[in-house]
């Protein structure tokens, strides 16, 4: 070890006070190596300038620049030093990479400096010895990233719990029609993986479940999980659909991105895993109000064609009477309106009362549906946790200038994705939206085809009014959608309005070139607004390269919405003790080398929950996260994390290392 080295430290902070760093300064000044410790406020240009010009590089072997963004000043120092003719090493200490960005923790800062001064990895300084590892793993989120990670670990013969808050696994990828740039059908490549996960002996699916609590340390976590009441027995359900066929309640289908309706008891989509029904308690008439005839029921029955008035009158007696079970309700009905009428109108009454239990009545399997089932808590012990919670699509209603939610034929890209998809509501026919009697938007298979369609890029992305970041995938999926539309409707004029075409991955640029030759009008210039003028949608924008104002009559407008952090990220971060970035993505340990690790050794992150990315990158990240898990399991130990930094402990390690 070179004992004679002399080091200068410049701490460049943004609008904090020099005094905040006084403990670090006092501590480090005591070290024989540290010759200079200077705090500079980034915004104070004057002191900055004089500090840099007064630097005497010949005195130092090492210069450490610390701060929020020290890299941006490195070249400033470097050019000063290079002029003087000597070339001391300049080291950077980025607060962000040392978990120092949120608040000033002087002990942590001192440790970071010590690491750089004595050339000891920061992780080594912080490690608290090794802990034994439980070889079970919990994966949160069963989109493509979660599935991939689960398979990776499961295939190594290690137990995996795959937690998913929805009733099926598959995530967003299951909703897509085809994937860029190879135009592989998304379902064709994803469903086998879903099936594999579903059948894997080492993978336990915990669908329709939520994370409640995590206790313990890396290598050994006690996890509490809430299994939401599915109300359908997974083992008994045969997926016949008799229940759903008679269900009177509807809600927009999440899987179809809201462009079709599903019932209260439903299978999310035909290829769901597990392919079993689930009851949406929020809209189930029974769950809402068990066995009760109310004023609304009677009103609805009266409106129903062919329903005899006299029976309604008899039903009034039953108003607001609480009845516990279907059998009881049936007998009450017989008692009041007679057996014959019950047989004839029973179903109708069931449908219209809050006392609906049609699914139970028509289910061919005994005790399969239990509408009284309650949420359940389970506890598991795992050694590692992988977080792969994905994203939430940008709410296009926020970009009011495009009139999404106002004009029926302004769609989001996800909606078009479902419309194009063969398993979508129109069996893959691209049609214009109409309105039903209630004013809801409907897509009819026999509907009219759009003669012109425009895709607007960067909706909600690269925009200070919404999200500053680039969502990375929109350019490519827009090109893909344009291609698919053109393929299905060759007569349709397709426009794409973009700012920068970000075709960055393997084969993407080639794909872009291909689409350009398919007769699609790809125009540089973002659409500014969509307006309704004389019953037609008009878009207005600027064609930047042709220097023209675009005022085009368009029948269907598709908004390429960006990706946003999932709404429950904050709650999850609190449960798991993780940090979030300013936008709400999960914060990785190091932006370069450890994008799948977090400040908590046992918790890994994968996929879009770390930041927007496409499918191959998500898959790679999932595998990489799995590598971290497998590494610790194979070794049988994991590094413990210190939450409170003890300087004496660190000094001890430093002493050992220096000697």
């Amino acid at each position, binding site marked *: 070890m070179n004992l004679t080295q002399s080091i200068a430290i410049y701490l460049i902070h943004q609008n904090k006070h020099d005094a905040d760093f006084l403990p670090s300064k006092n501590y480090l000044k005591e070290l024989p190596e540290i010759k200079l410790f200077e705090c500079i406020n980034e915004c104070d240009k004057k002191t900055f300038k004089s500090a840099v010009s007064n630097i005497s590089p010949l005195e130092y072997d090492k210069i450490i620049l610390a701060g929020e963004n020290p890299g941006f000043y490195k070249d400033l120092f470097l*050019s000063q030093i290079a002029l003087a003719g000597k070339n001391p090493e300049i080291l950077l200490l980025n607060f962000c990479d040392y978990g120092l960005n949120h608040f000033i923790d002087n002990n942590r800062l001192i440790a970071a400096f010590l690491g750089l001064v004595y050339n000891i990895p920061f992780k080594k300084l912080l490690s608290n010895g090794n802990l034994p590892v439980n070889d079970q793993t919990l994966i949160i989120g069963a989109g493509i990233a979660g599935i991939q990670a689960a398979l990776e670990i499961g295939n190594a013969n290690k137990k995996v719990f795959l937690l998913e808050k929805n009733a099926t696994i598959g995530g967003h990828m299951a909703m897509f029609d085809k994937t860029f740039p190879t135009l592989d059908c998304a379902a064709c*490549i994803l469903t086998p993986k879903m099936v594999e996960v579903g059948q894997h002996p080492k993978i336990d699916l915990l669908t329709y479940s939520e994370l409640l609590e995590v206790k313990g340390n890396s290598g050994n976590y006690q996890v509490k999980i809430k299994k939401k009441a599915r109300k359908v027995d997974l083992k008994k359900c045969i*997926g016949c659909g008799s229940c759903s066929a008679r269900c009177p309640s509807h809600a927009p289908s999440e899987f179809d991105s809201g462009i079709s309706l599903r019932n209260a008891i439903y299978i999310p989509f*035909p290829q769901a895993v597990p392919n079993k029904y689930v009851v949406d308690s929020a809209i189930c008439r029974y769950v809402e109000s068990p066995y009760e005839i109310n004023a609304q029921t009677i009103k609805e029955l009266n409106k129903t064609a062919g329903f005899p008035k006299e029976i309604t009158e008899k039903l009034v007696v039953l108003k607001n009477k609480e009845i516990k079970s279907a059998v009881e309700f049936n007998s009450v009905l017989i008692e009041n309106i007679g057996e014959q009428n019950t047989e004839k109108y029973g179903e109708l009454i069931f449908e219209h009362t809050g006392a609906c239990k049609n699914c139970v009545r028509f289910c061919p399997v005994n005790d399969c549906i239990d509408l009284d089932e309650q949420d359940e808590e389970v506890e598991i012990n795992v050694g590692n946790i992988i977080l792969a919670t994905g994203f939430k699509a940008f709410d296009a209603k926020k970009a009011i200038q495009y009139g999404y939610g106002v004009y029926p034929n302004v769609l989001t890209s996800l909606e078009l994705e479902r419309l194009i998809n063969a398993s979508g509501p129109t*069996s893959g026919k691209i049609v214009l939206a109409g309105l039903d009697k209630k004013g809801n938007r409907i897509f009819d298979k026999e509907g009219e085809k759009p003669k012109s369609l425009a895709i607007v890029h960067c909706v909600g992305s690269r925009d200070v009014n919404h999200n500053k970041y680039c969502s990375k995938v929109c350019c490519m999926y827009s090109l893909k959608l344009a291609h698919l539309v053109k393929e299905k409707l060759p007569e349709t004029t397709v426009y794409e309005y973009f700012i920068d075409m970000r075709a960055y991955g393997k084969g993407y640029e080639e794909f872009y070139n291909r689409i350009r030759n398919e007769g699609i009008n790809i125009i540089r210039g973002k659409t500014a607004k969509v307006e309704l003028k004389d019953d037609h949608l008009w878009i207005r924008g600027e064609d930047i390269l042709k220097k023209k104002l675009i005022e085009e009559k368009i029948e269907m407008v598709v908004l390429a919405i960006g990706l946003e952090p999932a709404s429950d990220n904050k709650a999850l971060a609190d449960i798991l003790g993780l940090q979030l970035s300013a936008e709400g993505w999960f914060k990785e340990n190091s932006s*370069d080398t450890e994008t799948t690790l977090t400040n908590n050794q046992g918790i890994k992150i994968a996929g879009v929950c770390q930041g927007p990315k496409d499918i191959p990158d998500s898959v790679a990240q999932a*595998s990489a996260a*799995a590598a971290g898990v*497998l590494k610790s399991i194979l070794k049988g130990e994991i590094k413990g994390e210190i939450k409170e930094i003890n300087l004496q402990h660190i000094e001890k390690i430093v002493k050992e290392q220096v000697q």
Partner: protein
Amino acid sequence: MEEYRIGVYICWCGTNIAMMVDVEAVVEEIKKLPNVTIAKDYKYMCSDPGQDLIVKDIKEHHLNRIVVAACSPRMHEPTFRKALENAGLNPYFFEMANIREQVSWVHTDRIEATRKAKGLVAGAVKRVVHHKALNKRYVDIHPATLIIGAGVAGMSAALEIADSGQKVHLVEQCNQLGGMVRKVDLNYPYLNSSRQTISQLIKNTEEHPDIQIYTESKIDKISGYIGNFRALLSNHQEQRELEFGNILIATGLKSFDPSIIENYGYKRIPNVITSADFEKMLYSGLIHCENGKEPGNIAIIHCVGSRNENYHPYCSRTCCMTALKYINQISSAAPECNIYDIYADMRAIGKDCEELYASTSKKNVMFLMFDQQHDLPVIKQNGNGKTVSIEFTELLSGESIHIQANMVVLMTAVESQANNKEIAHLAGISTDKNGFFIEKHPKLDPVATTTEGVYIAGTCQSPKDIPDSIVQAKAAAARILATIAKGKVQVEVTTAQVNEDICCGCQCCASVCPYSAISYNEDKKVSEVNEILCKGCGTCASACPSGAIVSKHFTDNQILSQITGVLEMQIETA
């Protein structure tokens, strides 16, 4: 003789197949064929319910042969074989007819396409009765791993594997570890020090007891198969043999040489330099022209050799952000310097990259857009010899402009290593038209290759930045760790088999085998097949003059009956 009970399933594949093939008509036609017990159609056969349908029918109708007409067997043959297994049937009692890639995607006439589909399915039905039960075989995995290339990807993977206590052989052709990243000072978007990152990585790799490093070495030969590879390794002094179970290729890439681009005059005009040259300057701390003076005007040109059919059609992915990084570094070192950034599309795709783009635009920089495809700027040397002028049409303003600069930085493309083809041949994988290695599946399997036990990571697969390379390296490590953890892996069973009674010992087969799987048994005077090396390609079977070699699952009998089936149906439906 056994009674054949065949179940036939026709997949719609959403509309992929159903759009061009009348699936129901195919079902009706196939039902009439002999031995067909049931024929059904379903929207997505590969889905869970689709597979369940097969399993249920096998049990209910005692089916003993299954035909599925759907997509290419490449993706889903394993899926359906598994379904058969789940139903207790030997997975090889299965045949797949490809009516998507071979029918619906390539035809435009629905009637003809339907007819062709009928033929293909009939062929499969005819064939499947000749299928024989084959049993799975496993091989043990050697726990060591060979990693070729010790750049940031290779080292990350090595550390990941070695940290779990497994042996790694790390081979590097240069005399130093670190690869391309060693030449980079700062990294975007946070301007963190790559130098620190890479030196830490090198230190960890070199100090790791389980990583054996071979610098200035190259692989001469690889033999063996997943779990049991051997390689010959040589450097100037010696040659040695290594044994290992998996191979990871992380050979990285190299910079494009822009001197072939006439317009830019690289190497002809002074002060026109590449990004690599500029990086060197930044590394040393002095940005200077050839006369030693600090440049007052620097122009940066993007997409040099990228996104242009004449050079490389692909996007090099990192240059846009590297240019933004340069702008920040120049503004830091020389705040008075004017920077012209000549770009095509600003591809700020990574986390926080768009934010860097936004903050960079406030620096002393002028962003100018050009057409990288058809209108490359022309760089000319001015009379004074100190400056160059760059002329082109700026797209955002529509003006044709010329700018004066003291220095031009060309953001050169990256391209595949020259010896990729060689390595691909050694490892039994393939390269694409740009020379990058081809992954098993571009979407869902970016690190595996079609050869089992051989993985690729980092920029040898396609251009990418440091975090993405490291992620891929770790992903490949996960795959390798999983096989090591399991200890054994299933191998191909559709291999070649020699009928020793007929074999005349001519050794024609051994000379054509691409996998060196056939050897001659001197004692018995016959050829023998090493079933683990054999990939079942069938070359030997067709070369054998006496018909002594049979490819399991591809017997003459099976193929001929398939052809008959197809032709009969074509005649019948004509």
